[in-house]
């Protein structure tokens, strides 16, 4: 079980990396013992539902208001290490991914439900992984109970006691930051059982929901300024950490690549439709803004026991947090959904589009004089 594939690539990864792998072996052995003694007994009678996760920006079907009492909600996520393309200039990264996507899939449950996650580390992977749910309580968010080597799986159950949108991410000992900025994070939404509420107790509902996962990447360059590429995650480790320590990302993108939410992949809505935008950033502060629209209801720090703010222009989401914004579109057109650090939006990639169809409202805006000579 503790046999690790030691490939040429692993050997090339350098002393620091080999040290981390040694540490990994010991931790994996301890993990097994802890899991055995933590057998549940009191939730066996609850109804169970199995959810099929979908790739972001889409979100699996879910009830906004829960019917019935608490359930055990089963999810399964397989971890894949894969090379992903960040832009058209040749920048690529060995991403560590929950379910093959950056960000990982959004999970939705209700307060009081139990989340039961089967986490699988694909045998083709090279690294140890785990999962830390900011929404769970204890064991470093589950991280201490879920460390798995390539070819292993683990099952973690935790109770969703705090309503809100929360980040989850990989947090292996000694390498947390590298895994997180390799794309290994996602979000979970724990809805109040009776749905979202405004400050005056009014129901806040949405017709559709998008999940935007913002990610900073730190791609090394060679002496001539070209992007460096690597044959394995391990080989990229030392160079990448050196760039990470500059705190200057080479890319800040939505959903894993420049343009992942534009063009054919742009989000869509209709005039009159209410859209919920969940936005997570597992590592770095961000400030979402909808160009041409507003945040009707905003939980910037994402926690539903606090009343939402109303009618915002830009909202601040601290690194390591997910937020929720709800907006009813009132005009047709192309909206840009951006991180309103505009350098990050337009130079580094943190911009998406929403295509909105419907009737134009002259009362809200009208061009009185087309651009013409003075």
């Amino acid at each position, binding site marked *: 079980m503790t046999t690790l594939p030691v490939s040429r690539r692993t050997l090339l990864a350098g002393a620091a990396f080999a040290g981390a792998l040694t540490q990994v072996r010991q931790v994996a052995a301890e993990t097994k013992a802890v899991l055995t003694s933590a057998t549940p007994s009191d939730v066996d009678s609850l109804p169970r539902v199995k959810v099929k996760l979908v790739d972001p920006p889409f979100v699996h079907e879910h009830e906004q208001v829960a019917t019935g009492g608490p359930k055990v909600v089963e999810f399964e996520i397989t971890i894949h290490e894969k090379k992903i393309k960040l832009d*058209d200039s040749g920048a690529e990264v060995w991403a560590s991914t929950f379910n093959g996507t950056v960000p990982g899939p959004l999970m939705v449950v209700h307060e009081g439900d139990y989340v039961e996650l089967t986490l699988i580390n694909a045998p083709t992977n090279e690294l140890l992984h785990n999962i830390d749910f900011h929404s769970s309580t204890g064991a470093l968010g589950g991280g201490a109970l879920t460390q798995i080597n390539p070819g292993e799986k683990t099952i973690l159950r935790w109770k969703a006691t705090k309503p809100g949108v929360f980040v989850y991410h990989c947090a292996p000992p000694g390498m947390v930051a590298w895994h997180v900025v390799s794309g290994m994070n996602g979000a979970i939404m724990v809805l109040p059982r009776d749905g979202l509420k405004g400050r005056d107790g009014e129901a806040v509902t949405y017709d559709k929901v998008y999940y935007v996962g913002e990610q900073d990447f730190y791609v090394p360059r060679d002496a*001539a*300024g*070209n992007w460096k590429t690597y044959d394995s995650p391990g080989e990229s480790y030392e160079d990448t950490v050196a760039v990470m320590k500059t705190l200057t990302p080479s890319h800040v993108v939505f959903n894993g690549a420049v343009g992942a939410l*534009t*063009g*054919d992949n*742009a989000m869509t809505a209709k005039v009159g439709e209410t859209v919920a935008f969940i936005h997570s950033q597992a590592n770095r502060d961000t400030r979402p803004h909808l160009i041409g629209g507003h945040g009707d209801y905003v939980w910037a720090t994402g926690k539903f026991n606090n009343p939402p703010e109303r009618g915002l222009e830009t909202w601040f989401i601290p690194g390591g947090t997910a937020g929720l914004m709800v907006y009813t579109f009132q*005009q*047709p*057109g*192309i909206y840009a959904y951006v991180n309103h650090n505009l350098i990050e939006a*337009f*130079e580094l990639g943190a911009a998406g*589009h929403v*295509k*909105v*169809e*419907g*009737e*134009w409202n002259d009362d809200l805006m009208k*061009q009185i004089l*087309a*651009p*013409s*000579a003075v």
Partner: protein
Amino acid sequence: MQVSALLMAGAAFGALGISFWPQTTPTALPELVRLVPAPFAHRLDGDWQQGGWPVDAPVERVTIPAPVEIMALPVSMADWQTCVAEGACTAADGPADQSDLPVTGVSWIDANAYAAWMSDRTGDTWRLPSDVEWAQAAGELFRDDALGIESDPSNPAVLWLAEYSAESARSRNLDREVRPVGNLNVNALGVHDIGGAVWEWTSTCLRRVEVDGSGAILRQSDSCGIYIAEGLHRAAISDFVRDPKSGGCSVGVPPANLGFRLVREAG
């Protein structure tokens, strides 16, 4: 059309990927293709409006005013490095170690510095081609970039959404690889590398043209700080820009890279 071709030693060096460049000024000229005035149908450049709404530019018969010779190949990184070595050009933003690629990461100002250097060392007049000269040289490889979308005066978003769809479709199968000069394509005139991942600067200023219902020009204004770059579609880019990613063709697809080729005025 008359075609004359002169092979330059430098182009051969570039094709071989040799990055070292002799410090002495080469005496040979780049391969040139002669363009003579002959009318052809051309979708005009610029931003055209009718009644305050964007419309496609009209197609008109145009003629270049005088014969010119245009470079059959875009200026390569090797060519550019020679100019840099002689102190007349500054380093391009494109990869300096890949001498056989077309030079990229150059602004309109950079391109004009190169033209001045070429003119100085040869005694001829070298300059960027105009939009019409470039179009004639591109020949059958020139792409009509009309969107074919009608504005709806009661709903401006109809145009924006249609433009966005058109731009999205355009970007779907874009070839973003920059190939060594001469390797992309060649047209009947012998002009190479039209419409790939490198857009080429022209001497044509961005103009805004207001027309009436009959197409007659009511007003025209030029913005000579913004120039037309030619490629898969035309882009309007500020003269100091080297990396076009945030400029250019409305919301959808900016040019991937900026390079150029020159024309020599016929003596």
